[in-house]
């Protein structure tokens, strides 16, 4: 039975880790994810779990040790943020190409410079092409629920890929909010035992991991990895279905909020989705046909599904909480518009950059964006297709 509680996003993820009791956790502290290894260490110190914690000397070593541990046959996780994820970059690629279902709790924080500890998605988005499954959370509840679903997704047959469970630094990681927790036993049964078929520590059955590959094999290996990532989409849905049975909470590739008859839709990721939903309620009360789509699964990217969901709208605001430095918009903007074009859904889009390095994103700004879209469609006001909001 569900248990009502209140905790921060970091506490929630740590609590999920406690319930899963993974085999090994190598980690290096970095704000704002530091609390996770601290809390896990405390659980271990108190004898509540018997995970082996490896206090590595850098994030690069954290992911390196995680790959070693996972290849050895142990269920492994780590946690990081920002520069920590950037330092792991090489190893992120290897975790994926070696097909290691490692879980990573990413607490999103902007990348330097300037150095800043607050939230945006530049870390996670910077790692978007490393071959990891990426799932983003709106609040502590989703961070918790997503983490519980992480291993069942990553370890699925046909997937075997690492998974990043992301939440917004400080905004959810350090905010205490209400949450419903599952019982330990429910989580344990849901996640199950990890029983890899082949692993380094299988006596008499040696394996070799991480070859040098000549061109003749490398391209084929990359294609196989791509197929595995595509398979993750089904795994995400399948696991969500099972998860609903124990939690009553539904998850998909993305959440559609009042979009059915919406003329204007805001598409975004993470904690700002809650703010946008509040604004949508306020605007609906005034008769505005507006809605929100909150993307949950960013990798693999559900381009076709999003195009279908957006088809009926007159205009869409695509919200990126990171700058891509490509002169052409943010990553979400690029991918959504590519998906719309390929599906021949020719609706107006505006790609907004918001909330960089912790810049607050408010209900008022959501009102303003919807007003801009409406003005553009109704009155033909010209609107830049790529712009910043909340900028002085």
């Amino acid at each position: 039975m569900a248990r009502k509680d209140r905790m921060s996003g970091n506490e929630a993820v740590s609590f999920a880790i406690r319930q899963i009791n993974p085999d090994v956790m190598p980690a290096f502290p970095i704000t704002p994810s530091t609390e996770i290894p601290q809390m896990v260490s405390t659980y271990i110190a108190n004898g509540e779990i018997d995970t082996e914690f490896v206090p590595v000397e850098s994030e690069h070593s954290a992911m390196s040790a995680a790959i070693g541990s996972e290849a050895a046959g142990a269920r492994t996780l780590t946690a990081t943020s920002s520069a920590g994820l950037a330092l792991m970059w090489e190893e992120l690629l290897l975790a994926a190409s070696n097909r290691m279902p490692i879980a990573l709790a990413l607490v999103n924080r902007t990348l330097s410079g300037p150095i800043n500890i607050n939230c945006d998605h530049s870390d996670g988005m910077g790692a978007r092409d490393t071959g990891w499954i990426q799932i983003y959370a709106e609040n502590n509840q989703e961070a918790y629920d997503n983490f519980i679903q992480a291993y069942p997704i990553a370890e699925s047959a046909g997937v075997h890929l690492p998974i990043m469970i992301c939440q917004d630094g400080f905004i959810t990681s350090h905010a205490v909010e209400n949450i419903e927790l599952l019982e330990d036993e429910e989580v344990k049964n849901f996640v199950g035992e990890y029983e890899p078929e082949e692993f380094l520590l299988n006596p008499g059955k040696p394996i070799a991991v991480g070859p040098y590959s000549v061109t003749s094999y490398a391209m084929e290996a990359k294609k196989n990895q791509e197929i595995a990532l595509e398979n993750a989409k089904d795994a995400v849905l399948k696991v969500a279905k099972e998860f609903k049975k124990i939690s009553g909470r539904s998850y998909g590739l993305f959440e559609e909020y009042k979009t059915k008859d919406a003329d204007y839709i805001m598409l975004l990721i993470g904690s700002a989705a809650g703010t946008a939903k509040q604004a949508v309620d306020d605007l609906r009360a005034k008769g505005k046909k507006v809605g929100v789509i909150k993307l949950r699964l960013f990798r693999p990217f559900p381009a076709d599904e999003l195009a279908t969901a957006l088809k009926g709208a007159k205009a869409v605001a695509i919200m990126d909480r990171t700058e891509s430095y490509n002169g052409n918009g943010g990553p979400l903007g690029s991918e959504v518009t590519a998906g719309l074009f390929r599906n021949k859904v020719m609706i107006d889009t505006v790609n907004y950059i918001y909330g960089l390095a912790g810049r607050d994103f408010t209900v008022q700004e959501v009102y303003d964006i919807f007003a801009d879209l409406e003005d553009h469609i109704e009155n033909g006001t010209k609107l830049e297709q790529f712009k910043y909001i909340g900028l002085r």
Partner: protein
Amino acid sequence: MEQNLNSLNTSDCVNRRNTVSSYNVKEMMSKKERLAPGHRMCAGCGATIGVRAVLRALHEEDHAVIANATGCLEVSSFMYPYSAWEDSYIHNAFENAGATLSGVETAYKALKKRGKLPKDENFKFIAFGGDGGTYDIGFQSLSGAMERGHDMVYVCYDNGAYMNTGIQRSSATPMFADTTTTPTGKESVGKMQNRKDLASIIADHDVAYVGQSTFTLNFNDLHKKAEKAIYTEGASFLNIMTPCPRGWRYNTEDIMEICRLAVETCYWPMFEVDHGKWNLTYEPKKKLPIEDFLRAQGRFKHLFKPGNEHLIEEFQKEVDRRWENLLYKCDR
């Protein structure tokens, strides 16, 4: 001291025969080969001679997981789908063999503790890295793994330059060596700096065991150190000089002579640090001049041009200084 058992004198057959039989070479060589033939290392490579010697120290009933830093050894020994390793093997990247293997070792602890592995099957953990992956780019990861005290052995096969990428200098490259990033020329006499003494640095991590060795004709010194390193609980480090005929520019068949000269000139001292206690494991009866070691290799050819005598003197001074320092540490 074991120098009597461990003679390096290649001209004395009788002595050699005695030496060889003293640690039951036949038994040693009859063990199952753990590094299969068919790898793509250069003909005459020192690295695989070293790997074979280390793996022979594994007890036959024990399993092993080998980790490998990117380098010659890695790209040549596991080229898909050909692996030369009879044991489980993991290559991750260039700079992180220490961290990778510490993850494997921790997994072993975790899985054993949880009863997920058979009780009576034992695994040992050995990392191999070249001097690039060990002294330089992998130094942090190595230092971390050593400091945390994982029950593993990190073996550096030290051939004194980045051979895999084409003989660039490393911090293990000896002074004055001609490499592709310290080329000799009108304004250059090769590498300007002395080599880093990594074995001492790791010893100062206060690890369980550190051994420095190379190839002697009977491999007794290396064998004993490898066995101690593998079977001493905690973190251990072996630094093995493994000459590279291509980078050092000598004929492949001369490797054993090169090693002998390295040891007899005290360029490559043989020592161990066993739980903090420094032991000299071999002392030349008569220390040979460093030029004997240098002359044998093309990378030092420029030192023998007229007018460069002072460079050899300088090299000798450095060798002497380090040797005296080592004798002091070993309480000699």
